[in-house]
């Protein structure tokens, strides 16, 4: 549906990208471990963050013991083919998400910061890890980062415990006061990545037209400052910076359209798949394409927002997720919630599969990309932000060692892990939010 001009059979329609872009498996199956041994200390090229809402059933998430991964627990079962590419980390926490709530779970997941308790536009959080990474490795790509989600309908009037909806909706913040809205519509995401598609020449001409429009905007913004106070004039200057940023992106896109390894003709996806899983897989496909075309190197993806009342009848769960997550220790409800958790994980497994089978230089996209999958809540029944479900995957060529369960003896800030991943993309900072160290265990050889 994105690439080919040939008709696709209906059964493969929704898998369009997967079916048409993946190269034969043999080409892609470069054994990551071998390559990693050869070049142990390279930086990671890309970072991906996948957010799972409202925690999970920890008893069905945690592997029975620490060390090498044996049989995977029920929620993680779908990751079995990629056991050698994942590490389960437990006993990580988000201290700054307290007092516990859904808004702060989402807000703290990538910022590890305390959200200012307000419903109004004086919201204040912290710059999120993905955005620090984007500043470092995103400057050369068309989009510094890509923010994606799955919820097409906005929440109104229901934001959590007196927190502005921005906290609950936005995972990524480019500054403590700038939440970055995410996009859930596949066609819109496609158009941001590739414009309206078409041939290379058409894509470049379209970019030039955008650039000339933006030139005008920049000229006219200055006029806006007349008669404004100092603070508002500063704001207009920020707008101008925003416009310049978009211009830079377009210039980069123009340069890259000329020479990247994407197929020459790209066709847009049209609608939104009706089934959640199809929609999610399409969003993952787009992420693979964005990385494959080097259009961006940092992606965040919210599988559903906190307090989502989405039901999953396709896996036999017709209860809305949020009330189910406040299960009151009812075993039946926990079991149904765990089905949702496992469903989300299985979609992540699909993403790993796609990345692993897409070649990239001397390895696969997965070898060159580190991924963090997890939630800002541990036990959702009580809005708990300790013992978070967290998985790190990929990045083998950056020296990440996988295939095990690491449990911290003491509750350890999730920020340590953020800091470690930021290290790997070259962000040089001594600490991040409430970090008190680094998760260097990720690099120690498996035999320990």
């Amino acid at each position, binding site marked *: 549906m994105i690439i080919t001009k040939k008709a696709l059979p209906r059964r493969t329609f929704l898998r369009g990208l997967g079916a048409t872009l993946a190269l034969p498996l043999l080409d892609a199956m470069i054994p990551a471990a071998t390559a990693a041994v050869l070049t142990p200390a390279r930086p990671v090229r890309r970072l991906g963050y996948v957010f799972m809402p409202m925690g999970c059933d920890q008893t069905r998430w945690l592997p029975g013991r620490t060390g090498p991964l044996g049989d995977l627990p029920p929620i993680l079962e779908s990751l079995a083919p990629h056991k050698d590419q994942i590490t389960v980390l437990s006993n990580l926490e988000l201290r700054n998400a307290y007092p516990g709530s859904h808004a702060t779970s989402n807000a703290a997941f990538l910022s590890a910061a305390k959200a200012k308790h307000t419903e109004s536009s004086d919201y204040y959080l912290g710059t999120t890890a993905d955005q620090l990474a984007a500043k470092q490795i995103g400057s050369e790509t068309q989009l510094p980062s890509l923010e994606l989600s799955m919820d097409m309908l906005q929440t109104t009037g229901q934001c959590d415990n007196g927190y502005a909806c921005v906290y609950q909706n936005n995972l990524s913040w480019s500054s403590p006061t700038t939440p*970055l809205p995410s996009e859930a519509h596949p066609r819109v995401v496609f158009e941001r990545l590739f414009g309206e598609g078409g041939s290379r020449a058409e894509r470049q001409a379209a970019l030039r037209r955008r650039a000339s429009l933006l030139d005008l905007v920049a000229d006219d913004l200055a006029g806006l400052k007349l008669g404004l106070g100092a603070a508002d004039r500063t704001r207009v200057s920020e707008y101008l910076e925003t416009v310049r940023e978009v211009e830079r992106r377009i210039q980069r896109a123009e340069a890259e359209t000329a020479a990247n390894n994407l197929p020459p003709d790209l066709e847009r996806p049209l609608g939104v798949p009706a089934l959640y899983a199809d929609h999610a897989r399409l969003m993952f496909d787009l992420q693979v394409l964005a990385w494959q075309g080097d259009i961006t190197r940092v992606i965040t993806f919210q599988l559903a927002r906190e307090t989502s009342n989405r039901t999953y009848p396709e896996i036999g769960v017709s*209860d809305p997720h949020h009330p189910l997550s406040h299960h009151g220790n009812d075993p039946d409800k926990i079991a149904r919630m765990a089905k949702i958790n496992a469903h989300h994980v299985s979609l992540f497994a699909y993403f790993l599969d796609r990345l692993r089978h897409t070649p990239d230089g001397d390895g696969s996209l997965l070898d060159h990309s580190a991924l963090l999958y997890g939630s800002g809540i541990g036990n959702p029944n009580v809005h708990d932000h300790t013992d978070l479900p967290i998985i790190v995957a990929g990045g083998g060529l950056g020296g990440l060692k996988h295939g095990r369960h690491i449990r911290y003896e003491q509750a350890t800030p999730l920020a340590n892990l953020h800091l470690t991943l930021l290290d790997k993309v070259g962000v040089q900072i001594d600490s991040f939010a409430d970090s008190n160290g680094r998760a260097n265990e990720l690099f120690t050889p498996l035999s320990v």
Partner: protein
Amino acid sequence: MRFRSGVQFPLSMAVLAVVMPGREPVRADLGAFVDEHCLDCHDSGHSRSDLSLEGLDYSRPGTNPEVWERVLRKLEHRLMPPVDKSRPDEGSYRHMTGYLTAELDRAAAAHPQPGRTDALRRLNRTEYQNAVRDLLGVEIDATTLLPQDEPAHGFDNVMIGNLSPTLMDRYVGAAQKVARLAVGASALAPGGDTFRVRPEVTQEQQVDGLPPGTRGGLRIPYQFLQDGEYEISVRLVRDRNEMVEGLRQPARVEFLLDRDRLAEFTVQPPGDDKNWEEVDRHLVHRATVAAGPHELAVTFPQAPTALFETVREPYVSRFNIFRHPRTVPAVYQVTITGPFSPRGPGDTPSRRRLFAPLAGLKPGANDDARAHAILAPLLRSAYRRPVVEADFRGPMQLFREGCAEQGFDLGVERAVSAVLVNPQFLFRVEREPAGAAPGTVHAITDLELASRLAFFLWSSVPDDELLDTAVRGELRRPEVLERQVHRMLADDRARNLVTNFAAQWLHLRALEAVKPDERLFIDFDDNLRSALRTETELFVASVLEEDRSVLDLISADYTYLNERLARHYGISHVIGSRFRRVSFADDPARQRGGLLRQGSLLTVTSYATRTSPVIRGKWILDNVLGTPPPPPPPDVPALDDKVVSASLPIRARLAAHRDKPACASCHNVIDPVGFALEQFDAVGRYRTLENFHPVDASGGLPDGSKFDGVAGLETALLARPELFAGTVVEKLFVFALGRGVTPQDAPAIRQIVRQSAPSHYRLSALIIGLVQSQPFQLRTTP
């Protein structure tokens, strides 16, 4: 705080004069009252309260509105002292609220603090969509073009000062698309749009707007870009085995363009090969369509069968493929692809409108002069002010580029896109008067006032008449302003107050996302969802259009029903898909009427499987009474140690958490409000039994009043009509001004309510009071 001198102030002074009511000064001993009724809890050392009333200056409460407006609100609503503590008698309550009101109002009149709406406010998604409609005559779905706006204070037009690169990027893309829709000049590769019917739509009845004798399908208002050929293809709904649902005998499918038949097909069940993949493959038709807005429809002729005439109970919708497969085929999606072999932009309403100024030009005018003539009225409307020559520079530059590339039309298209990305269009700007000191109170300009009015009542740009009035400097004259408001309210665009303002205020937008449990509510399909929304929209619109009292929103004895909804409500003799007004005026035991009896609100305040008296109670406290309960504590203790049988009535289950002191202090206030609506189930049906237990709908309000059922609740809510009217004004205030209500705004809001009391709180009186108020007309420099 001081007034600037030397600036014209005729109207704002007039506003000030009304603030000072000629009432007798009230005297009261606030200190003694606080000491007797408040300080037990609200002292500085007490842990249970964040509000200390100890050691304040009780002689001049007007100087401290942050504290005393809060106290006044609690006393006005009889929320404090709590019902189980010793409370003042009604006379003391009235005396003290009268005193505080007078003191606070007097202080506000002496030192007006009209507040400050942000200087830079971006058009939000709805405003952008409406503005494009009013500027260019093009209907767009902005949700596909722009990201959603973050709501704050309950509305999505409050937090709109930011501009991220993503958003800027999207505005650029949107401008190009809109300009292309309006002019249709740029050549493009055939594109596609796919329209899906929501899976829960039952397609057994006539779709509203399609010809009688048809059933199901969908109607697509669509703007065709150019004259040319378009391919329309249709797929039918399949079940989980990938078979076309309900296809047991040959079925006919029709494509309609503007209600005329475009093509007709027959779909046959597969032969022995069971090849379901191919049965609807031939539902493709290529047609020549003229550019512009058309209505494409795909539907089925209604088969003459007695089956659907029989009454079956319960009514079972066909949407649930897992349990109730459809009996007849249904449309899954329609894709429109094109234009193939395009033959130019054609003659569309938007082009006629855009090019109209050319008629006034001398023959032989050159391209630049023609483009200039086209742009002049567009720029004025888009920038909401008289144009100056500099405004033409950018658009004309793009015009010349486009003109050179591919001729006049493409030039105009590029110029239109330049207007649509201009910050003068995208931002509403309110400027500070030159040289004003910080904290100066000043009147906004007439043009700014025109924009405030238009964005409040229409969520769109001002029209010519409003701009002309502002340019003439007449808009501030109270009688002119009032006339303009009445004119604007009578305009179709005022429907925005229903679909935008009320939909957000009442949480109607959340209806799209609710998913009642399919097993418990087997008849909840998308037809019902849309009927529920339509009922409330038509109902609110009736209050707006007939200029009724806002109290009718609660107390009305009529509503709007179609057959689907009437069946849901158990009301007979309402036949057909058309909505009509149904009165229950003579029915003392009526079940339907005002908002609190409407399925839409009762559903959005419920869980998927059951009602939630907590959410319903909070909804009423927030949106009807204007006294939102505090947010729950972050470490909500679980209910698990008292897991009670799910078969017990919800009241019994909630009793468990009201036993916990940590929960009880708030839930004792919230829950009883919601209990009064227990006569309505989680999808708004009337009931007398809940899980085989008789419904107990006894409830109460935080002021201590007790009653039974929705009728009692309505009576109690309207016992003091000024409280509900005040809430409506506050909600209108947030929406109109794009900012939250502060304690400093309370005197102005009280005044609006007082002024509208003689007209029995007509909606127009509230709106006129609001636009005449200081916060709407004045502003403070930063």
